[in-house]
Structures are given as structure tokens and as C-alpha cells.
């Protein structure tokens, strides 16, 4: 049995929804960040698979993936920096403890 586009797309979709589920249910910010990374990688997998199977030729999809990997890394760095600032003040990484602002 050979791998087809649908295997890759299914894997991408499963990864994506694991990520969505993680973001919505996890209470630890580090786990949420990891779940977001899963969502980014699901999209990357889709892009590469579409490039290989549906639109071979120009490596547009794979090129896009290089950009998104860099951007996702930059975004997560900002998130970790914010988390560190909070952790130093409040000594917590759980979202339910973030309750200064409400109303």
C-alpha cells in the first residue's frame, strides 16, 4: 500500500483537531503553546502534501512552510517571554489563576 494525499491530509486534520482540542481544554499555558504548535504543523503538513501531490512543479507550498516555521518560532518566543514575566510576578502558569482582569 502506498501513501496517498489522503493519508497526509487525514494526518493533518487529526493533528489540527488535537491542537484545537488542546487549546480549548488545557489549563497549563505551556500545554496550550504546544497545542498551537501542533495546529501550525498540521497546516505545514497540508501545504507540503498539496505541493507534492496536487500542484507539483513550483515549490510554492514548501517555500511557504519555511516562512511559517520561522514565524511560528518568533510568535512562540514572544509568548514564552510574556509567560516568564507573569511567572516571575505571580508564580503560576495556569490560566484559571489569571483573574486580575474581568467584567
Amino acid at each position, binding site marked *: 500500500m502506498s501513501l496517498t494525499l489522503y493519508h497526509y491530509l487525514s494526518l*493533518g486534520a487529526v493533528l*489540527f483537531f488535537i*491542537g484545537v482540542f488542546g*487549546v480549548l481544554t488545557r489549563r497549563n*499555558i505551556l500545554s*496550550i*503553546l504546544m497545542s*498551537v504548535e501542533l*495546529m*501550525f504543523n*498540521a*497546516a*505545514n503538513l*497540508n*501545504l507540503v502534501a*498539496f*505541493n507534492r501531490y*496536487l*500542484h507539483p512543479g513550483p515549490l*510554492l*507550498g514548501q517555500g*511557504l512552510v519555511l*516562512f*511559517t516555521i520561522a*514565524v511560528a518560532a*518568533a*510568535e*512562540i518566543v*514572544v*509568548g514564552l517571554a*510574556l*509567560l516568564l*514575566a*507573569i511567572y516571575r*510576578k*505571580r508564580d503560576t502558569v495556569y*490560566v484559571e489563576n*489569571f483573574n*486580575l*482582569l*474581568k*467584567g
Partner: protein
Amino acid sequence: MKNLLLLTPELLLAVLALGLLVWDMLQKTSSARLTLWLGVAALTLTLLAIVPQLSQKLQGVGSLWVSDPLGNFFKILILLATLWTLLLSMEDRSIPGGQMGLYAATLSLAALGMMLLVSATDLLLVFLSLELVSICSFILSGFNRSDPASSEGAMKYFLIGAFSSAMTLFGISLFYGATGTTLLTAMAPTSNPLLLFSLLFMLVGFGFKVSMVPFHFWVPDAYQGAPTPITAFLSIAPKAATLGLLLRIFTILLPHTALSLTMLFQVLAIATMTVGNLSAIFQTNMKRLLAYSSIAQAGYMLIGFVTSDPLGQEGVLLYAFTYMAMNLGAFAVAMVLAHASLPAEQDPYHLRTYDGLAQRSLGLSLLLTLFLLSLAGIPPTGGFIAKFYVFGAAIRSGFYALAVAGILNSVIAAYYYLRITYRMFFVSPARETPIPVGNYLATTVAFAAALTLAIGLYPSPFVESVKLSMSYLP
């Protein structure tokens, strides 16, 4: 090669912003004001670089972006809002003094991201510039690291932001699968289910930036926590920029009428107005109240986007411009009052600081009344003209439900805006000390008031320039 020159304003701003960062690093003791003035100079130069391109319509290199009057209108709006934010920051005390270079550079880079966003016609550039705006906004809203509320607001902003940009990227990957390109101009709009699906995923990211209703939860927290000049900035610039992008994608390149998404957008616009206004009624903190009101204002702007005829599109532009003036004014007055409050008061932005403002400073209370009347859409202010334009567009193209919802919402909004006016004029103040107003804040408020009144009393030059701006490629 010639087309690369079209990018002069963006390149200039990028170089100047990075230069500002390096300049600030090299200084041992830098003056905060001087750094901010350098930022103002950088933005002014960029504004001047746009002027020669104002009316040209040209395709950028590699078809990633276009240079057309529609984009230029939003670029000018974004640069003006950023300039204004820098002026407000001159008197803000919540920004750590030693990091002004970083602050001004991040603000300029956010403006750069928005300038690219409004001229993008390729999803690659859309994604990259959206992320540039997002990352800079996260940093800016958490800039006051010594304040836990600032970090907390920024963290909530970041979590929802990262989630929605992952959604957008997933949408882009599906778009690429459906069409084989990331170019938005390459294809005729069809109701291909995969394409529709991909656009809906992307809409999550755009809706997050516009603060459209199901994605608005970050708005009040991030706005309340952020330093006030940044709150003013976030409530105007990213919103206007993303509306520009939405206009370009969903009314020009892939019209939502052809994709049969009009009904969805109509529901989203009504929900955005209603949720924003109904939540604003119960707020006791001015920044939070203005945050919910900014959600509602985004809803009014979306009306013009839903009708998507020239009148509606012009309405969005006019509304965005008016909204910039009136919202900046309101935030500037809120800043003045917060500075005048005593350190003992726990929440310097509590609505009770507005009690009896008319007895402490009549001028300030009249100006705030002007801004609030304008936000509520009452003549003779700019807000009335903008609302009239947008609602008129909705009625003319037969979206009666939208127009009725908009008018009902304006009535709800008038209640909470005028309640502040009531506090200012008819409640006796806790203290009768006069309120000191710094020069920069006074200038900002004066400009905002002049612009709000000018649009209201003599709208024709503004309407003319908006009409001229509504020309675009392709």
C-alpha cells in the same frame, strides 16, 4: 526594478525603525522624549514618501502587493494613528522609561506590518504581515512588565492571537490545495466547498484582528491591561488595517456576494454591534467601556463591508477615518483624568473619576462630550456623518435588517455614552481640584476635536477624498 520603488515608504519605515532600535542601544542615557520624537520623525518621513504615489495604480514586484489609492488611504490612516499614539506616549507614565527606543521601534514595525497588510494581494504576504502586526501588538500590550495586569492582558491576547493565526494558516493551506496558488487575484470566485472552507478558516484570523464577535474575548482584557496609548493604538490601527484587507479580499478580489457569504457577514455584523453595546452598558472602567464600544464600532463598519457596493465601501473608509479621530480623543481625555487621580485611588480609570468633571475643568468635559456624542452618532459631529453614510448604504442596497439593527444599537450605545456625560455635568465631584493637562495631551485632544467637528460640520472634502480613494487594482 522600477516597481521596487513602489515599496519606498515601507522600506524607509523598516530601516528607520531598526535604526531607532540601534540608536537607542548605543545611548547610555537616552531621553525618552527625544527617542519618541525620532519615532515621530520616522513616521512623518514615511508619510511624505507616500505622497508622490497617492493616485497611482501599479502592480508590485512578483504580484505580492499592489500600490493603489485604496491601500494608500489606509496607509495614511495607520501612520496618522501611530503618530498620534507616539504623541500620547510622551506623557504616559506606565511605559518603562529606559525602553523607549524599543517601544517606538515596535510601534513603527507594527505600522509597517499594517501598511503591507492593506496592500497585500497574496496570502503569503497577508500571513506574514498579519503575524508582524500580531507579534508587535503582543509585545506592546505587555510592555509594562512591572504591572501584572499588563502581562495578563497581553497573555490572553497572545493565546487567542496564536490560536487564530494557526487557524488562518490552516485556511491558507486549504486555499493552496484548492487553487494551487496563494495569489488572490488568480482565480474567479466559485462556490468550491474547499475554497469556502478555507476562507472561513482565514476569517477567524481576520475576525480576531477586527474584533468581530465570536473572536472578541481578548479585547476588553488586553485593552484594560495595556498602557493607554497602546490601547488607543490597538483599538484603531489594526482594526482599520484588517478592515482594509477584508474590503480588498471580500468585496474586490473574491466578492462575498459571489461566494454566497453575504448572509454570514450580515449575521456577524449584527452580532458584533449588539454584543459590544450590550456588554458596554455594565462596565465601570473607562478603558473597558471603550473596549466594548470599539467592538460595537467595528460592527457598524462591517455594515458598509456587507453591502459591498461603492457607497458602502466609501462608508467604511469614512467611518474608519472618523473613528480614528473620535476614539483617540476619548482615550486622550481618559489619560488626562487618570493622571489627575490620586495614587490612593485604586482604579484611575474608574467611571467615578468623571463625577463632576464640568466643575473641575469645563473645557475637558465639553471635549469629552463631543467625542462621546460623535461615538454615539449624534449630529453635528463626524460620527453622525459616518453612521449616516453607512446606514444609508445599507438601506439603498436593501439590507433593511442591518440598518434597523444599526439604528437600534445606536440607541443602546447613546445610553452608556451619555451616562458618562451625565456624571460629568450633574454629579458632584469628590474633589474640586483643577486638572493639570500636559502640552502633548492637550495638542492631541485639540487635533482630535478639530477633526471630529470638521467632519461633522463640513464633510464634503472628506467625502470627496474618500470617493477618490475608492479606486483600486485590479
